[in-house]
């Protein structure tokens, strides 16, 4: 059993819980190949999908995951909502809660917003990305992608490349991979890869040289430059491209069978060259498919059971298929 009330981040998940979630994503990966992709498992349940920040993949992924499980969704999208009229986060969330959803998926530009909401609501809260803090489902789907391709996580050399400082994807991945004996390399411009980040996991190093960072990597995770989160002067794009763009020549420095991951959206020609993004080592589309499976597994386990102290249904339990 998962025994998790909320999914706020990977930092506080145990390796067992993470492995459990990845294992449970498997049947949902298979499910995506069914001709009829509609279960009744969460029929009658409602999932509030509250995105206070833009998103393509995560929002559609969560919404589709809920729908395929048979649940209904309540969709909040910040641009077209009363947040523009000045309504506060907690009022928005309480409004949604008054319509009795069974769970809420939330993305917000403030780090800590999902935890704030989780402390005030009775229903499970799933973090779809909060500020620069965590994006746990991204790290889980990245781990699933790597695990499927490489057979496991232990002992792999994973390089995270780019704007690490502002990246919640990087943080969630660092926390997760750090629990599985992964050798983590953080690589990027000095202003975006401070040495302090080395405190986040046991086997981790920082480097500002792309050649050094990518050499010998089993996995290179490329990050987007988080221009919407950067308040200090940015590095000029030409300079970034010259020093840190992942090109076909540069990916050769990694192991020959190295994987290239990117959480999306890709800015072609900036952090990554199109040839690499579309090349044989790229797992970008696989990541998206795996994201759906991971989110279905999470919604299935977090939403819809009876309270832990509810009496068990009577005789169905004996001779139920186990």
């Amino acid at each position, binding site marked *: 059993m998962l025994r998790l009330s909320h999914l706020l981040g990977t930092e506080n998940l145990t390796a067992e819980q993470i492995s459990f979630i990845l294992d449970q994503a498997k*049947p949902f990966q298979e499910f995506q190949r069914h001709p*009829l992709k509609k279960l009744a498992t969460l029929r009658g349940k409602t999932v509030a999908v509250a995105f206070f920040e833009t998103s393509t993949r995560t929002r559609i992924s969560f919404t589709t995951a809920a729908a395929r499980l048979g649940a209904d969704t309540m969709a909040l999208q910040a641009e077209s909502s009363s947040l523009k009229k000045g309504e506060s986060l907690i009022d928005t969330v309480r409004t949604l809660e008054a319509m009795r959803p069974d769970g809420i998926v939330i993305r917000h530009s403030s780090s800590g917003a999902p935890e704030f909401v989780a402390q005030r609501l009775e229903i499970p809260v799933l973090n779809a990305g909060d500020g620069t803090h965590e994006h746990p489902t991204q790290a889980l789907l990245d781990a699933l992608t790597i695990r499927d391709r490489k057979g496991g996580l232990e002992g792999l050399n994973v390089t995270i490349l780019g704007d690490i400082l502002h990246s919640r994807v990087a943080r969630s991945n660092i926390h997760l991979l750090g629990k599985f004996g992964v050798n983590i390399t953080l690589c990027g411009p000095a202003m975006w890869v401070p040495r302090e980040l080395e405190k986040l996991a046991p086997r981790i190093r920082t480097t500002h040289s792309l050649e050094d960072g990518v050499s010998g990597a089993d996995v290179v995770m490329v990050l987007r430059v988080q221009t919407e989160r950067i308040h200090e002067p940015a590095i000029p794009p030409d300079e970034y491209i010259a020093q840190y763009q992942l090109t076909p020549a540069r990916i050769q420095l990694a192991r020959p069978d190295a994987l290239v991951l990117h959480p999306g959206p890709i800015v072609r020609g900036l952090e990554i060259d199109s040839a690499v993004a579309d090349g044989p080592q790229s797992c970008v589309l696989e990541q998206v498919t795996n994201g759906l499976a991971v989110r279905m597994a999470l919604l299935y*386990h977090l939403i819809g*059971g*009876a309270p832990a102290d509810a009496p068990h249904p009577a005789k*169905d339990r004996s001779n*139920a*298929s*186990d």
Partner: protein
Amino acid sequence: MPVVEKRQLLSAEEIGRTLSRLAHEIVENSSGAKDLALIGVRRRGVPLAERLAQQIRGFASVDVPVGTLDITLYRDDLSQVGSHPVVQSTQIDFAVDNRDLVIVDDVLYTGRTIRAAMNGLFDLGRPRRIQLCVLIDRGHRELPVEATFIGRKVQTSDTEIVEVRLREIDAEERVMLVDRVP
């Protein structure tokens, strides 16, 4: 939950003979195993389905495909259990459309598992026919579900449990009737 064994229903040998008879009945009923496929319901329906296929290969020289079906996502009681049970894989590597399917499970009881299994199969396509093969039919149906191929019919009370042990899963091989200790 503490239980006490009341009596043995099938010995290892009897399980073997029963499966052999069921395998013959299935083939007889299917006009030569054309389009036949077996679907084992997790967990114990799976080794039973595999053994039936092996038997059929032996005496009829036909390779009947075997799929495994996990019904967890199709259960009707999920909002009543404390936390959602672990989901296992469903693995059916052949098309279900127009197939003559036989669902295989160890015990038929309320019928809810089989209702769930049928829902699972309909998500995969449109079989021509679905029949049910069980090792034990213990009565107490709560839905209109019936088995065509039955190993043994057993009268049971509400508190009793039919325990099936198969060597692939349990390291022993027998079927017992046990009762809950009050």
